[in-house]
């Protein structure tokens, strides 16, 4: 379960303070699918980074599965990212020199699993996203949709309960976007918590709940 309480993130640019997040309170229960929408620059990615333990809030409380995140050390944050969160980015973010299989194995390497088991899990994850035939292709040898599906396989291979996707279909045409969303809804139906940032109302509609962020605040009275 994800529990955000009065989260603020403030960037200081010399004299000026930018309130990227200005008091966000939000509860996302386990197994829920949540779409975060809002105009560009409203703070969606900033929120996502905090939920994903990549960044820490300037103030406020964030409890992830019963643990107060602001009290975690850097190593514990890394561990939380590794075991609790699966990231999916707009620009795929695959390692360019590694094959699809090696990319998917990466989270398990940091978990210290032996090679044979890593491989087994990675193959299964790639099968799940329908890329059994592309195990040894490098990112440059794959289409955008295929690359994003490799990234999804990487996010689910560690069996993390929460999947965070920041505009996963933003770089894709509608057909590839639909494929990617099919995989994500399938994951959700299997019990994963899904937090999705999107500009596309059709994509947002696939989630059972939507929240809108404007200027770092949750819009009240929306479909909350």
């Amino acid at each position, binding site marked *: 379960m994800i529990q955000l309480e009065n989260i603020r993130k403030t960037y200081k640019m010399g004299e000026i303070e930018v309130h990227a997040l200005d008091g966000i309170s939000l509860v996302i229960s386990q197994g829920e699918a949540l779409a975060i929408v809002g105009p560009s620059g409203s703070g969606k990615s900033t929120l996502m*980074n905090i939920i994903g333990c*990549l960044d820490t809030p300037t103030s406020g409380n964030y409890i992830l599965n019963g643990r107060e995140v602001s009290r975690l050390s850097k*190593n514990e944050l890394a561990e939380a990212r*590794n075991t609790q969160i699966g*990231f999916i980015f707009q620009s795929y973010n695959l390692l360019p020199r590694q094959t699809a299989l090696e990319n998917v194995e*990466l989270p398990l390497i*940091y978990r*210290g699993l032996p090679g044979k088991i890593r491989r087994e899990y990675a193959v299964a994850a790639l099968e799940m996203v329908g890329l059994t035939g592309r195990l040894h292709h490098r990112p440059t040898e794959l289409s955008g949709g295929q690359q994003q599906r490799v990234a999804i396989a990487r996010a689910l291979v560690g069996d993390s309960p929460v999947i965070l996707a920041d505009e996963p279909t933003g770089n894709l045409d509608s057909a590839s976007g639909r494929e990617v969303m099919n995989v994500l809804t399938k994951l959700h139906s299997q019990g994963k918590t899904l937090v999705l940032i999107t500009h596309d109302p059709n994509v947002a509609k696939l989630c059972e709940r939507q929240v809108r962020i404007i200027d770092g605040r949750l819009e009240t009275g929306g479909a909350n």
Partner: protein
Amino acid sequence: MGLLQAFRLSVSAMLAKKLRSFLTMLGVIIGVFSVVALISLGQGATSLVTEQVQAIGSNLIVVNITGRGARSGLTLEEALALASRPGVSAVAPMLSGQATYKYQAQNISASLSGVTPDYNAVRNHNIAYGRSLVAADLDHRQEVAVLGSEVAQELFGRENPLGANIRINGNAFTVIGVLEEKGDGIGESNDNRVLIPLTTAQRLLRNMNISTIYIQAESPESVDRAVVSVEASLKQIFRDEDAFGVFNQADLLSTVNQITGTLTLMLGGIAAISLLVGGIGIMNIMLVSVTERTREIGICKALGAKKKDILYQFLIESAVISGTGGLIGLMLGQLAATLVNRFSDFPTAVTFQVAVLALAFSVGVGIFFGIWPANKAADLNPVEALRAQ
């Protein structure tokens, strides 16, 4: 993350940029090559000099007399009496000077040594043909000469010198023997000299004082005892410790070894500086590489890489680059040593210790100069790293 995994990733990163990796390695290659080549050259020089010192004669003690007041040397009797001192097995006094030698139209200059029959044994320098000096030659002040191989060659060419008459400083001498060729020793030429009976030399050089005495100890163990007893005798004669000097071969050997050892170390040290420069090159490229791969580092961190995972990754990478460079440099150094060995009589060899040291040092350089870039990579903020490019 396992070491093996990190090692594999490093090799793949290295192979992804082959030319750059090679150029980065070049500094280490040159550094290790020069360390290995120069040290093995130095060690070759050491063994060459050691060989020469040992060729002077075995268990040798050299007495040099500078004298005190009117006395600038020993008489022949005093010198020979040293043979009965404890630890001493034989004594070879010598009286030396320069002389001119004439045979038919040939006229040369070389050193002249008045010696006793024991000289050949004590100095380990034997007769090639003819005979050596005997006691009777000394007793009767015979005008006979034993030629060094170089003198024989210069005066006689291919002619047989035995029985020939030569003139030494104008006096007629008969050649009775020729010495084996020995090559140059320490500070003197063994082959460019002529031996005559010591008593004859005293008259010819108009000098009764013997200032050089070669002494052979009974065994390597008795060298120290012989030195002590000879020194005691000389002190009694001169009543002044500064009037004479006693050197033994072991001391000489250790001095020589000390000098060549220092020299070898110095050469190695100078070469090690180039290894250091190679290390700085590695640091430079690793810093560039960290900047280039900032986004990758961000991805790894988002997936759960800890600080130490990234740190090891980059440390291993720079150690692999410099270690590979070290290995190539070592092989080139070995090749150079082998070539020098084959095409000259300089006995070079890359010893096991030098090889291990050079490799360990190059890996160490990689780790040392990798620390800063690796730290920089490991400390990157994941959000900012992901936003790179």
